[in-house]
């Protein structure tokens, strides 16, 4: 039996009640699909992932991607076939516009499918994830001609995509990048420079790789205002769509990493002794940073989603192990026999600690994703604007909190396995190594916290945030939270006090004081929103005719989350409001 079975029941529950997928699918712009067929689609997708992708996970970890003498990258056994089958089955393209060959469904449903893909092999899943990013960029900012030229093959997966931001001196500080673009007479550009840490920068799973590269046009202003976005294909594409000669794009080396070994992390060189690589400008010059911002929500949500995926995988593995491993004797067990460790209260606690937070993450991220869908196709401008504001507030939570918790969950999963957990053969350690990166790339979690405090909280001077809190408060007052109102109310008060403090810091220009509390603030707000959604879930499961066992488990995970996890965040209020003095006193710069 495989060690992962797609959690379709909980996914469908969250899609139905928390993300309200049904209403999303009724919006003009999305394809229609009756809600009762969603489950069948997810089951079929899940079956595919388990049969085709899951078997590549271990071999990917042990072999890794390898750079060959000719600068090509050899992928581990099974990847080529899994990728081809994925393209054939079309699971990567269901959320893209039908015009480009996609299924036209909401991104939130795509989230569910990519959760299962990532759970079965995180390193593999990054190839479609990055392609997704490239598609979003071209779709949002490319010309009509660029869209019809590049998108169909990217949407089908025949070609893959990458995102090239990072350089040795430009990581979190994207504005420091130095890659150059020189305009040519024919309207194209010659791109030169080096990019590092480029995920799936080179491989042969797809026939062509479409690199999206941030670079500076000669004479552009310094910093983020002088960055432009280019399409730079690995192979130039002829006007009739056939592949032409190789562009001046080379993978110089692959990084040796802690995890996601099968994902090639490349040092990419654009241009060579003969000149630059041919690139095509997207939109206008110097708009690159603004263009990246419009895609930020969905890219960051994608990474937050990997937190759910790995947590689910870890949970199922740990649960199975705890049922089988015999150690110690419970009072009800005969003398001379040993009990399965799942019967020990501390092991049960560890399992529930994982399960309750995993479900909470799924609520938060899927809810957030639904807001991103509403931002695109909400009925009125007002709907779209308010969805955009709220999605902006929640995205740093989905990205940072989910991946921080997933790291902790992977560690607890190892703990449940005892000594065996530390031994590679058991397989659980891979998830711990794999998920570590999710807290770093796509904007480190520290950057997420800063974004939340410095950009999102101040939207309309805190009004957008307050509207979210009022919605939570309304459910508390109307008793819609399955008897879990009290801890939620406490967290609500702590959040309000923190908001007041942080906004005052900004108005008094004590920016460092506000930033000093950013990370604990992100944790508080994340747990409050997730706790609210979990309490709602429990109420719905109890009152809406769900099987008794499902409702009871939901009620238990919600209660554990709200009564045992949420208060740890409520207690962070003093840390949020401590200011920067203690940091300055404790750490000498």
């Amino acid at each position: 039996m495989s060690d992962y079975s797609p959690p379709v029941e909980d996914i469908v529950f969250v899609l139905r009640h928390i993300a309200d997928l049904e209403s999303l699918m009724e919006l003009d712009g999305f394809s229609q699909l009756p809600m009762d067929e969603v489950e069948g689609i997810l089951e079929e997708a899940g079956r595919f992932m388990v049969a085709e992708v899951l078997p590549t996970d271990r071999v990917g970890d042990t072999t890794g991607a390898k750079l060959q003498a000719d600068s090509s990258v050899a992928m581990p056994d099974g990847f080529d076939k899994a990728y081809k089958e994925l393209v054939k089955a079309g699971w990567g393209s269901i959320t893209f516009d039908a015009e480009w060959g996609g299924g036209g469904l909401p991104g939130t449903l795509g989230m569910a499918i990519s959760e299962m893909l990532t759970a079965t092999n995180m390193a593999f899943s990054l190839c479609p994830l990055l392609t997704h990013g490239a598609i979003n960029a071209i779709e949002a900012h490319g010309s009509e001609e660029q869209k019809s030229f590049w998108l169909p093959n990217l949407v089908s997966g025949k070609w893959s995509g990458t995102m090239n931001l990072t350089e040795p001196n430009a990581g979190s500080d994207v504005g420091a990048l130095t890659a150059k673009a020189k305009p040519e007479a024919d309207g194209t550009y010659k791109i030169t420079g080096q990019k590092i840490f480029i995920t799936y920068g080179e491989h042969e799973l797809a026939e062509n790789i479409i690199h999206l590269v941030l670079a500076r046009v000669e004479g552009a202003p310094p910093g983020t205002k002088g960055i432009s976005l280019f399409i730079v294909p690995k192979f130039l594409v002829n006007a009739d769509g056939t592949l032409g000669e190789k562009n001046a794009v080379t993978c110089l080396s692959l990084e040796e990493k802690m995890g996601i070994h099968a994902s090639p992390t490349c040092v990419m060189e654009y241009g060579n002794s003969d000149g630059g690589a041919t690139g095509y400008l997207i939109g206008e010059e110097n708009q690159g940073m603004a263009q990246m911002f419009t895609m930020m929500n969905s890219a960051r949500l994608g990474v937050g989603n990997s937190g759910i995926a790995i947590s689910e995988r870890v949970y199922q593995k740990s649960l199975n192990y705890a049922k089988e491993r015999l150690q110690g004797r419970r009072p009800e067990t005969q003398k001379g026999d040993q009990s399965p460790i799942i019967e020990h209260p501390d092991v049960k606690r560890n399992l529930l600690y994982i399960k309750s937070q995993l479900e909470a993450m799924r609520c938060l991220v899927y809810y957030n994703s639904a807001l991103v869908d509403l931002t695109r196709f909400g009925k009125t401008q007002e709907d779209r604007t308010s969805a955009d504001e709220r999605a902006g507030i929640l995205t740093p939570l989905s990205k940072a909190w989910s991946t921080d918790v997933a790291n902790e969950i992977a560690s607890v999963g190892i703990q449940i396995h005892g000594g065996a957990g530390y031994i590679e053969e058991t397989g659980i350690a891979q998830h711990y190594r794999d998920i570590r990166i999710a807290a770093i790339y796509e904007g480190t979690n520290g950057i997420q916290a800063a974004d939340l405090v410095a950009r999102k909280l101040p939207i309309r001077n805190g009004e957008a945030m307050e509207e979210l809190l009022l919605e939570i408060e309304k459910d508390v007052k109307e008793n819609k939270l399955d008897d879990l109102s009290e801890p939620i109310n406490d967290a609500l008060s702590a959040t309000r006090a923190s908001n007041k403090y942080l906004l005052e810091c900004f108005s008094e220009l004590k920016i460092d004081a506000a930033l000093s509390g950013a990370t604990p603030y992100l944790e508080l707000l994340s747990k409050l929103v997730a706790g609210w959604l979990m309490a709602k879930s429990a109420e719905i499961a109890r009152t809406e005719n769900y099987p008794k066992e499902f409702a009871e488990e939901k009620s238990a995970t919600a209660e554990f989350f709200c009564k045992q996890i949420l208060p740890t965040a409520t207690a962070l209020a003093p840390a949020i409001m401590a200011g920067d003095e203690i940091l300055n006193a404790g750490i000498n710069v």
Partner: protein
Amino acid sequence: MKIAVCVKQIPDPAEEGSLDDATKTLKREGKLILDDSDAYGVEMALQLADSAGGEVVLVSMAPNGETNGLRTALAMGAESAILVSDPALQGTDALGTAKVLAAALKTASPDLILTATESTDGYTGTVPEQIAELLEWPSVTFAKSITIDGDKVKVERQTEVGYDEVECPTPCVVSVTAGVVEPRYPSFKGIMAAKSKPLEEKTIADLGIDASQIGWEGARQEIVDVAEVPAREAGEVITDEGDAHEKIVDFLKEMKVV
């Protein structure tokens, strides 16, 4: 060329099944899925229809109007499906199943019927030949490949030592060995398209079958006892004292593998 494929819908083997204490049969109340064994027949039929032209129709008998497994096969590319479902079918044995399937197959008037050699859950491996007998058609078993040649089929028929090449006039029944082709995955687009494909549900009355031939009453097969699977025995360890290769060869001979 019209190719009918018999597909059985069974409880998911990945989930722990349970037996009904009274009848000693497998409980089938939950959702049923396409038997993996039959996915090979479906794939083979789709490939034949692709190369020789024609259409693929599915036939299944299952409790509670179950269509989940049929939807999977429709999403793979079959054109239409016939489902026989009727409360009176409860307790039907392999021969009764063959009678029902034969009657349903007649309504589709195919040129070729494909089945698996045996199902995953029942695995009596008798239904295909019973269908052939009831239709008075020839039958070929254990096919590893099939080609259509005018009004006959050429079949490579797997044997213990290799394969036989046989020819058989159509219409006929051919059972397909598991693992001989790689079944395609239902694609997202295939699943969406499957929703609007014809799926006809029939009762035994529709097929004109006498209730005494089926169900518990008609069953000539009875499960008298069930026993636990014996625990797996410890393996034999061979220590190499220079003659390990001989011991391994002897062991394989004993197992009749070489």
